[in-house]
């Protein structure tokens, strides 16, 4: 196992799976402006996926394209964190998931711009502008809905209670992370935790939401050891066309 390939799959699978989830809202969002915002966010994430998985395929050297990696791997080969494969739920749950992801994403990309691998640094530089824009929106929305009506606050608190236990996986370390940190390709995930906590705690305080006390973290997504049941179901939708008609193109 090449740790760089694994790392690139983690980055690309996070944006791919979240991008697909967010795109599920297309045509269903509560208001037109949100529909457009969600579709645009999904588009950015899928664009970033092309860069990460494109480089993963190049590094692997088995002639697999970004599309091949996205469409022809099964659930156990995906390396996204469990957070991003969780179902959309209501709009509040979708926005909370986005915020918990964006807060990590912005920090991770900021560090990756200093990667010793110039290809990784270039992708991070490109993606970080988009991620910062996403964080602006998801943060504002979490605050507006948390500090909104009794009903919107109740839903945002429920979303936070449900999803916060998935945030800890971003900071779990395994041999891939250690190898990346040793080669200065990517930061040690644990070093991002303090800044992440500040970002999340500040926004949640403004949103009048209460952060769960427990730091228990669901894990198994980024190592691929144990995805939740939701990923496989999502892939049946995302991959069905390429599975039914392999190699189909426009």
């Amino acid at each position, binding site marked *: 196992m090449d740790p760089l390939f694994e790392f690139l799959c983690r980055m690309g699978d996070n944006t791919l799976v979240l991008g697909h989830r967010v795109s599920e809202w297309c045509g269903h969002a509560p208001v037109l*402006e*949100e529909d*457009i*915002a969600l*579709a*645009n*966010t999904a*588009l*950015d*994430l*899928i*664009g*970033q996926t*092309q*860069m990460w998985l494109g480089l993963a395929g190049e590094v692997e050297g088995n002639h697999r394209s970004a599309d091949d990696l996205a469409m022809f791997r099964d659930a156990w080969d995906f390396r996204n964190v469990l957070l991003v494969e969780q179902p959309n739920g209501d709009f509040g749950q979708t926005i909370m998931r986005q915020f918990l992801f964006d807060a990590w994403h912005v920090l991770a990309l900021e560090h990756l711009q200093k990667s010793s691998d*110039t290809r990784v*640094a*270039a*992708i991070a*530089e*490109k*993606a*970080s*502008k*988009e991620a910062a*824009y996403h964080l*602006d*929106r998801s943060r504002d929305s979490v605050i507006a809905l948390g500090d909104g009506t009794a009903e919107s606050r109740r839903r945002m608190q429920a979303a936070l209670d449900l999803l916060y236990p998935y945030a800890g996986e971003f900071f779990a370390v395994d041999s891939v992370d250690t190898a990346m940190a040793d080669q200065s390709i990517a930061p040690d995930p644990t070093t991002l935790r303090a800044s992440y906590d500040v970002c999340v705690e500040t926004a949640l305080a403004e949103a009048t939401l209460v952060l769960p006390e427990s730091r228990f973290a669901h894990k198994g997504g980024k190592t691929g050891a144990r995805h939740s049941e939701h990923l496989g179901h999502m892939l049946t939708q995302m991959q069905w066309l390429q599975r039914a008609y392999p190699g189909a193109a426009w």
Partner: protein
Amino acid sequence: MVATLPAPADVWGWLDDVPDPEIPVISVVDLGIVRDVGWEGETLVVTVTPTYSGCPATSVIALDIETALRAKDVNHVEIRRQISPAWTTDWLSEKGRAKLETYGIAPPQPAGGPEKCPHCGAKDLERVSQFGSTPCKAHWRCTVCLEPFDYFKCI
């Protein structure tokens, strides 16, 4: 026989006639996405950077550039994708900014919002949505003439 290769300055001029597929009022050169033009042997290499990483216009732009150059009898064209340095709205040309405004799209401002309504020039504006009809735009409204308009996001 080796024909004389067109000078890169001429090529830049031709590319300035290639419209952006989604905002046809400005050219791909105005948009600042053409980063370099040069010959490598007998192949003309045009280096292009995407605006947003998922922008669906990117592949259309590459095709349009190639088509425009073939029309000028340049038959060996390579479109090279470059992502760093990342595209910024600072690279929009002055000409492009002026054309956007005439077209009804407020050009990007470092302050993060439009300076004035592209229709009536009023400065009382409100944001409708952080996103708009394409990845590079947001949706705003003038509270004086009440017209909605696109704002070219500043990144």
